[in-house]
């Protein structure tokens, strides 16, 4: 379903936050450090990694909710730079948030929440048109039209997330950043919401950047998966490829942690447990960011940052010793 025209291209994206370490001193926190990737039209790119590795920051920086420190973001081949570009871009790219409880204004009715993007961009000429569009959106995500006049706190988590999705769909976007949209939900509800993402993608031809830490969810929904560690992208490949042949030691240990429903298979599955904790992004290790916890680390890893290179078609990895390890 995905054709090969990139809709979003990210080149050498960097996002540093200044953290005050003393009264007048500050230090850059490298939340995202030199990341490049592209997302093709109609595909879903899954973005995984542990907490604090910069997944959410990537999503927010692409939407220019944070000003990128360096790097370029292209939409449909066009560089997004000026304020006017960003404003235009926001009609095409929207976001679904992680927490359906705090991402909906408690003082607004459902129809106002869903209709806000329409009002902001003045997309509806009359009240009647606006109302019809809101009801259509509510129908897309499986909400009753009677719910329009209610407040967000009257709904369950799954319904709230549907409201958030309807809101993201309001401007008729091409691209949606889904920032852990199901991690705050029950497993049964997760399935419903994920299936809805799938259906909407088919129906409306959407492109997703799907951020999550549940690897099974990501595998189910993604065409390609990118693995992040400490602000860097360490591996990027198609979903099947990364599950069957992970090349980076970090991806390997991450995937070995995925629970397997079959007990026999689970016993046969050897878990790779990493030693130590994730280093603070304030003083990241020199060279390869993963070397402090990597079983294969050598002197070279401390000296230079491994290049993010294509080892087989469509499979990128950033590891000096990827060839040796995987023989």
């Amino acid at each position: 379903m995905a054709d090969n025209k990139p809709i979003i291209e990210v080149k050498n994206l960097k996002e540093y936050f200044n953290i005050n370490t003393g009264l007048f001193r500050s230090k850059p926190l490298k939340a995202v450090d030199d990341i490049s990737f592209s997302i093709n039209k109609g595909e879903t790119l899954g973005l995984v990694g542990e907490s604090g590795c910069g997944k959410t920051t990537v999503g927010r920086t692409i939407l220019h909710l944070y000003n990128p420190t360096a790097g370029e973001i292209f939409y449909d081949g066009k560089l997004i730079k000026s304020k006017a570009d960003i404003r235009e871009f926001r009609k095409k790219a929207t976001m679904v948030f992680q927490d359906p409880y705090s991402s909906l204004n408690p003082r607004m009715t459902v129809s106002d929440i869903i209709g806000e993007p329409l009002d902001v961009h003045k997309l509806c000429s009359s009240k009647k048109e606006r109302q019809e569009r809101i009801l259509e959106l509510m129908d897309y995500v499986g909400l009753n039209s009677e719910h329009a006049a209610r407040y967000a706190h009257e709904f369950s988590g799954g319904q709230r997330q549907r409201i958030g999705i309807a809101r993201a769909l309001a401007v008729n976007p091409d691209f949606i950043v889904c920032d852990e949209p199901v991690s705050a939900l029950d497993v049964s509800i997760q399935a419903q919401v994920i299936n809805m993402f799938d259906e909407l993608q088919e129906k409306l031809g959407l492109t997703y950047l799907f951020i999550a830490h549940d690897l099974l969810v990501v595998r189910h929904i993604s065409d390609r998966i990118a693995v992040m560690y400490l602000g860097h992208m360490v591996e990027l490949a198609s979903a099947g490829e990364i599950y069957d042949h992970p090349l980076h030691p970090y991806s390997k240990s991450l995937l070995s942690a995925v629970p397997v429903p079959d007990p026999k298979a689970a016993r046969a599955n050897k878990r790779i447990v990493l030693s130590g904790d994730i280093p603070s992004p304030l003083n990241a290790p020199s060279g390869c960011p993963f070397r402090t916890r990597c079983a294969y680390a050598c002197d070279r890893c401390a000296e230079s940052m491994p290049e993010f290179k294509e080892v087989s078609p469509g499979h990128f990895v950033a590891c000096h010793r990827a060839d040796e390890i995987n023989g």
Partner: protein
Amino acid sequence: MKKKRFTFHVDLDMFNPASEKDKEYMVQMRESSTFFKDGVKRLYKNKIAFVSFLVIVIIAVSSIVIPAFWPYSYENQLGVQPGKPVDASYNNLKPFEYGRTEQMKIDGGEKVFPHLFGTDSAGRDYFIRVVYGTRVSLAVGLFASIIVLIIGTLIGSISGYFGGKVDLIIMRIVDIIYSLPDMLMVILLSAVFKLTLTPVIAGTPLEKIGANIISLFLVFALLYWVSMSRLIRGQILSLREQEYVLSAQATGAKGSWIIRKHLIPNCISVVIISAALQIPSAIFTESYLSFLGLGVNAPMPSLGSLASEALNGLSSYPYRLVIPAVVISLIVLSLNLFGDGLRDAFDPKLNN
């Protein structure tokens, strides 16, 4: 395929499918309760707040309605008739006493409306002057707190939302205004404004209100917004980190839109409460300015100026000081209690 019956003991004929009407009866939507309705419900349950609300309403309504039908007016000197010498018997009447010509009428069998609180030293009915003074004081309090509310909310929300340098500059201005001795500033400013405004407003409808009251409003607009704006800024600082604000930014909403649609509605309870508590403070300020002779213009009374005039005859007519003082206390007390009740009812952090 025909469904198997669950058990033979249950007679299925006892069960009928629900009709449309039954379904409608079963599936009933609860009335959507808003934040505001909940707050009003809680406020209604709070006896003290409810009683003080009633007191305020009664005082406010009577101060508006009574002057319309009362036979005396606040500026009419009863002893002064055109073409006749001044009749001094009307001055300084005690409650329920009558002037010379009124007494003649009563003796002649006519009915005369009593002077409930007597008259003042210029022969004006004191009751209507108190009523009118209450009206002026309430109006000053209300308008002053509205001015404070608008300026404070505007500046506070801009400072809180945009942060950074904007916030720094605004907050330093606030600090400067805070550090001025406010009583002294109020007195100086109203004295200056009184002089400069009088020629400016001559001949305009504003003249009737008087330069003093306008300068009073200006003083409020200049000095009293600072605490309100600090309060609002603090609220906005915490609200702007909420995810729905980020969500609005992601849709491309501008700062003014986010402040109007997201931030202010979410701190409206704090705004209302502090506005309600601002009214008594404005009434106080007006009272002591009038007491010092910087308040309302001469024939028009306010509670403060009534108290001030009463000082001269304090030993002979103490009730003339007591009455306006009691009215001020009553208004301020019930507004404060009502404001407290509002806070209890609308502040979500105190919810049980």
